[in-house]
C-alpha cells in the first residue's frame, strides 16, 4: 500500500549542470519538493524533451538515472528490492507507458490477460465489458500488431486497470484518441480509480485526459 509519493530535489542526470537553464529553471517539478497523495489526481503538463516519460519511469522503478530522492511513504525507492517492486507493480502501482508496450505477437485479449493472470483481478467478462465500453470488443482476438495506434492505446489502458493500485501513472493516455474516445477512456479510468480510492498521475504534452484534476504541475 502506498499513501504518498514524495519527490525531493529530483533531477534527471541528463540535466545535471544545466540547473539554471530551461527547461529545469522553469520546471515546477525538477529540483522541487512535491507530494502526490491519495486520492487526489495530478496532471503534469510538459513539452517534449523535458523528461516527462523519465519521471514516470523513475516513479515506476524502471530507471534510476536521477539525483535527489523519491520516497513512497517515506521509504527511498532506490533501495527497494526486485521482489518488492514485483509486489508493488502487481498490488499498488499501475502504469500506462507512453509507447504502450503491447506484445505484437499476442492478441489484444492475451495482452490484457498476461497482466490479469498475474494479478487475478478481473474476470474475462469484466475485461470484455471494458473492451465494449471502449468500443473495441471485436478486436479482442486480433493480434496487437494489427491494431491501430488508438486501439492499442485503449487495450493498454485496460491492461493497466487489471490490477489493484493506489497510484495509476498515465503517460500521455489519450495522445492518439479523439475527443469522444478521450471522454469514454476518462470515465472508465475515473470509475476504476474511485472504486480503488486511488490517485491518478497523468502527463500530457497537449491532448489532456478529461479527468478532474486536483493540482497541475508544469514540468
Amino acid at each position, binding site marked *: 500500500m502506498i499513501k504518498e509519493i514524495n519527490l525531493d530535489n529530483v533531477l534527471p542526470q541528463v540535466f545535471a549542470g544545466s540547473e539554471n537553464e530551461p527547461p529545469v529553471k522553469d520546471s515546477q517539478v525538477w529540483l522541487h519538493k512535491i507530494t502526490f497523495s491519495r486520492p487526489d489526481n495530478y496532471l503534469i503538463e510538459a513539452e517534449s524533451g523535458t523528461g516527462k516519460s523519465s519521471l514516470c519511469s523513475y516513479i*515506476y522503478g*524502471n530507471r534510476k538515472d536521477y539525483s535527489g530522492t523519491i520516497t513512497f511513504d517515506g521509504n527511498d525507492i532506490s533501495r527497494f528490492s*526486485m*521482489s518488492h517492486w*514485483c509486489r*508493488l*507493480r*502487481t498490488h499498488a502501482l499501475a*502504469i500506462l*507507458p507512453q509507447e504502450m*508496450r503491447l*506484445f505484437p*505477437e*499476442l*492478441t489484444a*485479449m*492475451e495482452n490484457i*490477460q*498476461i*497482466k490479469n*493472470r*498475474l*494479478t487475478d483481478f478481473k474476470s474475462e467478462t469484466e475485461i470484455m465489458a471494458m473492451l465494449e465500453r471502449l468500443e473495441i470488443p471485436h478486436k479482442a482476438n486480433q493480434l496487437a500488431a494489427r491494431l491501430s495506434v488508438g486501439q492499442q492505446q485503449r487495450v493498454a489502458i485496460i491492461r493497466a486497470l487489471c*490490477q489493484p493500485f493506489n497510484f495509476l501513472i498515465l503517460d500521455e493516455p489519450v495522445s492518439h484518441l479523439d475527443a469522444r474516445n478521450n471522454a469514454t477512456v476518462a470515465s472508465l479510468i475515473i470509475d476504476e480509480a474511485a472504486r480503488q480510492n486511488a490517485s491518478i498521475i497523468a502527463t500530457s504534452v497537449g491532448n489532456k485526459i478529461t479527468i478532474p484534476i486536483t493540482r497541475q504541475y508544469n514540468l
Partner: protein
Amino acid sequence: MSKNIVWRLLRKNISAAQIAGYAIANLVGLSIVLTAIQFYRDVNSLWSKEDSFISKDYMIISKKVSGLNTINSVMGSSNSKTNNLNFSSNEIENLQQQPWVRRVGNFTAAQFDVYASMEMGGRRMATHLFFESIPDEYFDIQPDGWVFDPATPEIPIIMSKDYLTLYNFGFASSRGMPQLSESLIGKVVLDVRLSGNGLRDTYKARIVGFSSRLNTIAVPQSFMDWANARYAPNEKIQPSRLIIEIGKPGDPAIKEYLKENGYESAGEKADDGKASYFFTIVTGIVIAVGGIISLLAFFILLLSIYLLLQKNREKLHELMLLGYSPRQVAKQYYILVGVVNMSVLILAIIIMYLTSGYWIQPLATLEVETSSHLYAITIGAIIMAAITLGNFIAIARTTRRYFNS
C-alpha cells in the same frame, strides 16, 4: 487461447534445432555412461561374484615340487611326512612377519583313508579321495550346511570347480556319461568310507559348493579335527599348504617373496586381478568419454539458453514491468529444460536396457548372474539432476541479470 500466455510469448525464439542438438548429444553421452556402468557391473561379476566363499584377498601357497623332492619321497631317504614340501614352524613364522601378510592359516590334511562311492544312473562309481580343511574364519560366506555334528554325521564338502570341469569336459564327454551341473551335484549323496586306526565307518556326504579359489576337496575344520582324532590319533604333521590373508593385494613384494623362497601360489588367480584391473581401466575410459560428451552437451544447452534469453531480453524486461518476478519467468525455461532433460534420461535408460540385452544372454550361459539396473539408473538420475541443476542456476542468474538491467 492458450492457458499459458507467457510461455507462448517466450517460446517464439526457441531454436528447435539447438534443443534437438543438445538432446541428441546428451542422449549419446548419457547412454554411453549408463551402458558402460551396467556392462562393467554385469561383467565384473565374472570376477567378483564367482567365488563368494573366499575373497580375492586370500592366497593359497605351497612349495614348488621339484625333481629332488619327488626322488626323496620315493626313495624314502627321509620321512615322507616331514619332507621339505611341508612348511616348518620357522617358515610359517617368517611368513607371518611379512608386512603384506595379515594372517596365515594352515591347511589340515586328513591322516586317514577316504574312499567315496556314488550311485549314478544305475552305475556305481567309486574312488579314493583326500580331504583338507582350513579354519572356518577364512571363509567370507559359509555355504549352507557347512557344519558337522558327530551325532548325526553328514559331511559337507566344497569341491574345486576345476574337478567338475575336468569331469564334465574331459571325462564324461569321452566316456558318454552325463554332464553334471553344480545344482545337480548338490543333490547327489555320496557314501564315504573312512578308515584308519583300525576303524572303518561309512558316512553320508554332500557337495555343498564349488570354489575356484580353493583348489582342494574341503571339509569343515570341526569334522577334520574330529576325524583325525578318531582315525589317526597319533599323527602330527606340518601343513603342506597355507592360506594367507593379504593386507596389500597386488604388492610386488609378494611375488618376490614367493620366488625367493620357492613357494608358489595356487592357480593363476593373480591374472584375474590383472584382467579385472585392465577391464576397469577400459570401462573407466569409456565412461569418461561418455561423461565428456554429456558435459559438452551441457554447455551446448547452456549456450542455447543464453542465446534464447538474449533474444528475449526485451520481452523479459517488459514482463518485469508488468510485475512478473524473475522466478515466474524463469519457471517457463525450467519447465522446458526439465522436460527435455527428463526425456533424455528416460531414453538413455531405455537404450541402456536394450543394449544390455546383447550381453545378458552370453553372460547367462557362463552362469554369471547379472546385476540389477538400479545402480546405473540411479547414476543416470544423479548426472541428469546435476546437469538440470546447472541449467537452472544459469537460467535463474541470467533472468535476474536481465531483470536488473
